[in-house]
Each structure stands twice: as C-alpha cells, then as structure tokens.
C-alpha cells in the first residue's frame, strides 16, 4: 500500500465499497454468510485505506497551499465541456472533511459487525446497500465540486431509505417515507441555492464553474465579488432549508426521532453518526463562507435556534420511554451544541463544534449500537421493560457506561474536549459582544451550559434505569412489554434460555469507537490541528462580518447615546 499516493488511496476508498457491493450482488446465494463476509472485508479494507489517507493528512495545513487547501486532490472532467456545464469529478479532502470521511469508514465497519446476526432477511441487499451508503457518505465529504457534492448528498438518501424501509421496525414504511421526503424537500431548495451561487459567480467572472473552492474564493470577501446582503440572505435561506433539516435544527427535527427509532441498528448508527453531520458540514462548507454577511445578520437568531434545540432535545429526551427515541432526542440536543459552536464563530468554538460533531458520531454511534444489541436480545426498546442488565451482561454495561460518559462529556473522554472548547468559545463570543446583543448571547451561553447538565441527567438516568437496580427483563418473545416483539427478527428462537453477554464480534464493533473516544479525549490536539486551518478559513469571513456589524452598531449606539459629537457634523452638512 505504500506505493500508492494519497490521491489513489482516496479514489480506492471510494471505489472499494462499490466493488464490494457489486461482488455481493454477483455472488449472492441468499444466505447471509457470504454477503456479510464480503461486506466485512470490504469495510475493513476501506477503513484501512481511509485511515491511511486520514493519517497522511498534514497538520496545520502544511504543504496544502499548492492545491488550495485540498489533500489527495483528483480532478477530472465528468460531463465534459461539450454539455455546457463543466461538472467535474473532483474529490479531495481538507480539514473540514477529513475526520468525517474517516468516521464514515469507521462506523460502517462497526455497522457490518453489528448487523452480523440481526439481519436474516435479504442479507445481500442489506450489505450492498450498506456499502453503497458508505460510498455515498465518503463521497459527499470528499467532493470538491458542487454538483458532485449534491449527487452524493442525495445519493445517501436512497440506500438509507431502503435500509430503514426494509429492515426497520414496526412503523418502518412511514418512517422511511417521512425521512426521505423531509430531507429531499429541504435539499432541493439547497440545490437551488447552490445553483444560484454558481450562476452569480458566472455572472461576475464569466466562469461557469462548479468547483467549491473556486466559488468560495471568488464570492468570499477576498475574492472581490461578495454578494449583496439581500442575495446572501436568500441564498443562506435556501441552503439552510436543506442543511437545517439534515442537522436537524430545532423546529425541523420531527423526522429524526421517527427515523432513528424505526431504523435497524446499523441505520441508526450511520444516520446519527454520519448523515446528521452532513448538515453541520454543509453549514461550515457553504453557508458560512458563501454568505458571511447573512450569517452575521442572522447570528443571534441562529444561536437562539441552536440553544433551543439543546434545551428542547434534552427535555424531550427526559420524557421518553423508548431507549432509541431517547438517544434520538439526545442527538437533537447534541447537534444543537455543534451548531452553537459553529455559529459562535470564535476559533475555539468552531473547532469545538466540529470536533463535537465527530464526537457525537462516535459516542452516539456507540450508544445506538448498544441499543441494537439490546434489541437483538430482548426485542424491545422500552426502558420500563428492562432493568439491572449489568448483572446479566456486564460487558455491555461497561461499554454503555463508557459511551454515556463520552456523551455527557466526562473529562478525559472526547465529549469533554468538544463541549469545553465550544462552550468556552461561546462565552468568549458572549463577553466580546457589547451592548444589548451581548446580554442575549450571555443568556444563550448559560442556557447551553444548563443543556450539558440536562444531558448528564437523562443519560445517566437511562443507564441507571436499564442497567442497574434489580434485574428485569421480558420473558420469552411472546409477552414482552410493549408489542414490538411480533415484528422482531428472531422469531425462529421461541425461547431464549439465557441472554448472553457481548460476543467477541460485538466487542470488536465497539472497541474501535472506544479507542477513538479515548484518543480524542486525551489528545484532541492531534485532531484539532488538522481541522483548524480549514475551519479558520471557512469561518473567518463570517466572524469578520459579525465584528464589522458590532463595530457599526457600537458606533450607532455611540451616536445615539451622546449625540453631541455628531451635532456639529449635522449642522455643517444640513444647510
């Protein structure tokens, strides 16, 4: 593998899942063994290749100037100039995307292990869809061309739609359709916004390019053609329509609990772990650099929405009786943190927000994986049906507690690094802002901190109810609590004599996540240093715009408070 350049490795990492999916379809014999083995080998190879690429990524943006900040760049014409649209197959990584890219590969590997025994129905289809989803996820982060980005962005919908719809739980059809339509409606508007950006650039420069870096450069404040504020607002709104649904931001989250609850374990893990990050990534990649002034203009509102998501998600999570639903609402809350960090626009907060997005992928991915394991054993998601599982399955309890700690931000684990950074950044922003706006930002910051406390409450309560206390588990499949059992997958075993603890395979699925949770928690600098330059570049214009607004407002206030210095000016000019 050493002889491959990063470019080749990146292309291989995109191609391997597709090759694997093709192999699974070709060699399908209707039984799971062959399909899952191919899937495991493919995801493992992809993980190795993607990991290799990710760790070759230089820290602090060294040696990336020549390629415009992109690493492992491949650029080839796709539709050809003939068609009038220079759509390019352009893939590469930068600081924004590199960890999401690696995270996709990591979580997919875990998902294959996770689904090893729980998928009996049409296994070949399942694993090939999983691999296609992997390709889509890695592609969307690697895409450097707007259309390619959008193609991958929407392409991720199709496999996930099937994953939820075919292998989901009782209400899967409705959940899959709602998920698909919600995200599609948003993303077509995003698409319109992206096209408008392309055409605005075309009207200024006469270059009908779809290249993201070129557009960002040309339409940024440095490029000389920043868009007027009203246009920026429109574009911001259009882009937000899609990304905010993906994240999901507070009022648009309604599809998420349903989709998470109904999805099979692997679907939940990837949905929470990677696909929600598409929204965060989209904001960082497009909204902030392309519409900085609009961002600054909307900043207080965006921060309020984020913090509303944090508090709302946490409170609703407290009230849940369904474990997966609880975790789903915790995702709403956690994603609120990510967005809060991103919109706080200080370097610390932004880094914290993006790191928290990765963290959420790891910890919530792990939590959903454990939920899947519990479901495999007990065929229920009801909290009240279970209790004291730590006695029965100590290893699972250990991992559960570990991921919970990661999720609530125990120092030493990854969650702490992310939350601390972004909250610190948020407070920075709040203290830096003077005037009446500053008070609002301080309130937001304090509310966000209370969100952390709420997060600890509902997560620990969940662990306490399910894993500790007296042992309580549904007996057999026939009369469990709730009525979810009849659609469970394991109807072939009418009576399970004893629930076993985690198998080696399941531990193998969880350990990689745990490793990275420790790694990020103990050494966040390794990850931050690779993200920082690109993040700085992406958010700098918006931060500057916000600063400019602050200065203007301060000046206005100054004139309003003590009008004396301005009176002579008026007096001079008025005659």
């Amino acid at each position, binding site marked *: 593998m050493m002889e491959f350049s990063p470019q080749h490795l990146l292309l291989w990492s995109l191609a391997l899942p597709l090759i694997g999916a093709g192999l699974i379809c070709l060699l399908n014999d209707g039984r799971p063994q062959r399909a899952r083995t191919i899937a495991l080998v493919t995801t493992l190879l992809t993980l190795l290749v993607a990991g290799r690429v990710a760790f070759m990524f230089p820290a602090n943006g060294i040696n990336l100037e020549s390629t415009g900040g992109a690493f492992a760049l491949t650029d080839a014409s796709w*539709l*050809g*100039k*003939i*068609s*009038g*649209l*220079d759509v390019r197959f352009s893939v590469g990584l930068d600081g924004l995307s590199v960890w999401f890219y690696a995270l996709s590969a990591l979580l997919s590997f875990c998902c294959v292990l996770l689904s090893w025994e729980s998928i009996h129905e*049409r296994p070949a*289809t399942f694993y090939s869809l999983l691999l296609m989803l992997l390709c889509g996820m890695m592609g969307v982060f690697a895409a450097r061309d707007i*259309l390619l980005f*959008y*193609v991958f*962005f*929407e*392409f991720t*919908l*199709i496999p996930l*739609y*099937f994953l939820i*719809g*075919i292998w989901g739980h009782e209400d*899967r*059809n409705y959940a*899959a*359709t709602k998920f*698909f*339509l919600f995200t*599609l*409606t948003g993303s*077509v*508007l995003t*698409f*319109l916004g992206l*096209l*408008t950006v*392309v*055409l*605005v650039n*075309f*009207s200024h420069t*006469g270059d*009908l390019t779809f290249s993201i870096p070129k557009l960002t450069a040309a339409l940024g404040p440095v490029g000389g053609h920043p868009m007027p504020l009203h246009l920026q607002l429109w574009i911001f709104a259009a882009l937000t329509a899609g990304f905010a649904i993906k994240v999901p931001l507070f009022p648009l989250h309604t599809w998420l609990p349903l989709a998470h609850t109904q999805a099979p374990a692997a679907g939940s893990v990837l949905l929470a772990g990677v696909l929600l990050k598409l929204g965060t990534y989209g904001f960082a990649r497009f909204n902030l650099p392309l519409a900085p002034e609009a961002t600054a203009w909307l900043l207080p509102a965006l921060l309020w929405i984020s913090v509303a998501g944090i508090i709302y998600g946490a409170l609703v999570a407290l009230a849940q009786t369904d474990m997966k639903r609880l975790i789903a609402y915790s995702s709403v809350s956690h994603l609120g943190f990510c967005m809060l960090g991103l919109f706080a626009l200080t370097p610390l907060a932004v880094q914290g927000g993006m790191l928290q997005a990765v963290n959420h992928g790891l910890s919530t991915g792990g939590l959903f994986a454990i939920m899947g394991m519990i479901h495999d054993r007990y065929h229920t998601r009801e909290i009240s049906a279970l209790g004291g599982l730590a006695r029965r399955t100590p290893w699972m309890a250990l991992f559960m507690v570990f991921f919970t700690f990661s999720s609530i931000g125990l120092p030493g684990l990854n969650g702490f690094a992310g939350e601390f950074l972004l909250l610190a950044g948020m407070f920075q922003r709040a203290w830096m802002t003077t005037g009446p706006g500053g008070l609002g930002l301080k309130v937001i910051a304090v509310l966000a901190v209370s969100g952390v406390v709420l997060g600890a409450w509902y997560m620990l309560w969940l662990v306490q109810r399910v894993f500790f206390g007296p042992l309580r588990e549904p007996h057999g499949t026939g009369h469990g609590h709730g009525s979810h059992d009849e659609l469970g997958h394991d109807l072939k075993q009418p009576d399970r004599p004893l629930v076993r603890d985690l198998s080696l395979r399941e531990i193998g699925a969880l350990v990689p996540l745990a490793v990275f949770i420790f790694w990020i928690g103990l050494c966040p600098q390794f990850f931050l240093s690779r993200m920082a330059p690109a993040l700085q570049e992406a958010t700098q214009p918006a931060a500057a715009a916000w600063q400019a607004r602050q200065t203007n407002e301060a000046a206005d206030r100054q004139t309003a408070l003590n009008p004396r210095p301005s009176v002579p000016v008026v007096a001079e000019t008025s005659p």
Partner: protein
Amino acid sequence: MTTATSIQLLAPQCVLVFTAIVIFVGGAFSEGRGPWKQLGIFGLVMSGLILAQHQRAFETLLQHNEVAATFGPVSLDLLGYLASWLALGVGVLLVLQVTGTDARGPAPEVIGSLLLLVAGLMLAAQANDLVLLFLALELISIPTYVLLALARPTPAGREAALKYFFLSILSSGLTLYGFSFLYGVAGSTQLADLYSVAAGPLHAFTSLPLLVRLGVLLVVAGLGMKIAIVPLHFYAPDVYQGTSPAAAAMLSAVPKIAGVIVLVRVAAAARPDLGELGWKLMLGLSVITMTLGNVLALWQRNVRRLLAYSSIAHAGYLLIGLAVWLAVPDKSVAGSGHPVTPGLAVSGLSAALFYLVVYSVASLGTFAAIGYLGRPDRPLDTVSELAGVASSHPAIAAALALFMFSLAGLPPLAGFWGKLMLIIRALSVDVGPSAISPGVRHWFIVVSVIAVLNAAISAAYYLRIIGAMYFRPQHGAPAADGGLGTKLATGLAAVLVVGMSLYAGPALHGSDVAAESGAVPLPAAATPRARPAVAQNGQPSVAVPQLSAASR
C-alpha cells in the same frame, strides 16, 4: 434532385411503412400469431440502418458550412435527424413491450400500427411544411386510435379509446385551425416563408403579429392535448387507466415527443412575431401543469392513473425549457445589441429536449415493467398489487425503482441531469448576465422554486410505488405474465437510464446540437443553403457542435 433527395430522406419511413404493410397483409393470411414482433423489430432496425446513412449527408452539409437543408416538404437538420433516432428507439421499446389481449401475443395490426406511428413521428420531425406537419401528426393519431381500440376489449378500454378519439379530433381541429392562420399570414405552407414574413419588415397590416399569435395559441392548444398540458390534460388519467400498459406507454411518449417537436418547429418560425406571449404562455402552463399533475398524482391508487398524472407533471417541467428559449432574445431575433448570455436561449431548448428523452425512456421502461408484472388480459391495476414484488421479482423491482428514482430526479440518475439542466437554465435567466427586463427574470426564479418543490412532491408518489414493492409483505403474487418482450424492454430502458445517468455527456451533446438546429427555422425549399440566409439576420454562422453558455 429535389424529388430524389426527399425520397432518400424519407427512405427510413418508407421502410417502416413497407414493413407495416407486409405485416398487415401477412396478418390477414395467417391463422395463428406469426413472428410479427420480430418482423417489427427487424423493420425498425433496417430503418435505423438506412437512417444512419444520413450521417454522410450531414458531413456533406457541414463541408459547406450548412447545418440544415430543405428538399421539398422535408428537410435535413439535426433536430429531425436526432428525433428520428429517438423515434426509432421509442419504437423498439414499444414493439418489444406490446402485448395482446390474451396470451397469444399482439395482433399483427397492433405491430403494424406501431410502425406507422413511428414513421409518423419521424415524418413530423423532418417536415418543414404545415400541411405535412399536420399529416404527420395525424399519422401518429390515427394508428393511436386503432391501438387504443385494440388494446383492451373491456368497457373501460373502449371508453378510453373513444375518449381519446374525440379529444384528439378536437386537438387536431385546433391545430389545423391554428395552421390555417399561420398559412394566412405567410401565404405559404412552408415554415421558412412564415419566418421570413414574421422576421421581415413590418407590413402595412399591423395586425399580422396578432394573427401569428392567435395561430400559435391555437397550435399550442391543439398540441397541448398531445403533450398533456394542464387545461387539456383531463383525458390522460382516464385513458391511461382504461387501456393496456403498452398503449399507455405509447401515449406517454410518442404524442409528447411529436407535440414538442412540432411546437418547436412552429415556434421557431413564428418567433419574431410572438413577442412576450410565447414565454409567458409556456411559463404559466408549466407552473399549472407540473403543480396540478404532481398534486393530483398524490391521491391516485391505480398505477397507470398515477403515471398519467406523473406524465402530465413532466410535461410541465419541460415547458420551462421552452419558456427559457422563448424568453431570452436570440441574437438573430433581438438584433438590438443587448448582451445576452451566449447560447442561453438555445440551451433552454436543449434542456427541454434532453428532458424529453430522459423522461420518455424512463416512462417507457416503467410501463414495460408494469406490463411485465401483469397479465395480458388483466394488467396490474393498483399500487398495492405491487406489494412484495421486490422478493418475487427482484430484477424487475430494481429496474422499476430505478425508473421511479430517475423520474423523481434523484441524483445521480438521468432524471436529475434533466431537471438540473432545466433549472439551471431557468435560473440563468435571472442570475446570468442577460439583458432581459427584471419583470421577466423574477418569474423564472419563482418558477425554479416551484419546480424543485414539485420535484419533492413528486418523490412522494414515486416512493409509494417503491415502498409497495420493497416494504410491504407479499400477498397474492402478481401474475408476471407479460412475456419476454416486456422484460427485454424493461432491461433495455434500464440500461439506457443507467447509461444516461453515469455518462450523460453524449445525450446532452445530442440535445445541444438538436436544439441548435431546431432553434432557428428550417431553410426555405428554394434555398438549401440555410445558414447564410439566416446570417443576414444577424445570426452568426455557427458550426454545429460548439455552443452553450459555458463555451465562452
């Protein structure tokens, strides 16, 4: 020279007509069902081989820096040529998937009528004369009546045939009435004469543009029924539902292609006199058509009825491209020296043509798959009958899902490229460096928003079909007795969709050159040298392949 050349030009059609006659006669003398399908395919292939010879004629033309030439009432240009290929492709897909009313396969009359209909489509694509255009449209309509009458011997089928027959007569009448106005203005049935009158200096009769507009309005009304544009769409759901899947497939593709091409031909000739009417009409119709089609499709339970509404909605999308074409002043028409995004008008047309191709293939494939899943005497009716098809017929289900996703416009499928082209052209009117008045431009951005929201709405009912196939347990497996032909047609359409998805370049290029030649009127019969004549009006003489917004 003229006669000989026009016979050469019409040789592909002649082959089709000849094959059809052989099939008619043979069918009359044979007791059982002979190899008519094979013979039909053979005729189409032979016609294609002869059509391929036209390539050389184009090379000769290009050597003289011409892109179009007229020989008698037919002409040789790239729109006609490429549309003829499309017609042949559609013909193959149709002949493959057509089934009889019972297990014995289709009647020879059905295959013969299909071939004649394809010949009519090819004739419509090449005609440059109002009389011939009308007759070519009728050559599509009349076999359609026969096909519909033969499709299903049930009361619903008869009702469908009768309904289509009467409305089609109405539409023919409207078209003819419109043509007569255009003839009155031009004093000739040649489209080139209409153009020279329309583009010429203002006459003493200042009401002439009004007459042209009235004529075009009537033509749009007549063709609107064939394309299934909203105020004239109402026959479609009933007819699709009442007839067989193969006949519905034909209705969803052939009249639409013919209608669009004839509309383009007429609009290109009448364009200088159209004023703002053209694009306003197209834009308004487009918004109503796609919204109504999509919203009404949401409530449908019958598959063919649902697809009928979907075909209405798609007609709405492609009108956007025509609106862009008519709204953006072509340099040759405006002549006012405004800076206009180069080639934007033409690329609007190109987007519409590309969309037409993409839609037709996916739609034909869908009906083929539906036809395969049903029985010849009892086609698949409701969406819920599709339940569990994914387990019983995984390949057909996958193909059907592919068509649905493509029709919904999901990337990276062909339908996405089609919608992308349409929307980017519509947005270009607003954002691009064009000199169109702001009043015009904002309409296009509104329409773009409506179009993408419609795409999202449409996904809802396409997903219902997919959801039924994949997510619902099987109860009472579908008969799946459509035969090998429908299976082949499904496969062929799926291959085409995948091809146009992953490698859209050639199809885009094809629609670009077709639009380039279709955007300007056909040359007059007396002057085969087309481009120099147009160049006098300010249009630079353009070599065929290069054009489009990005080429600058």
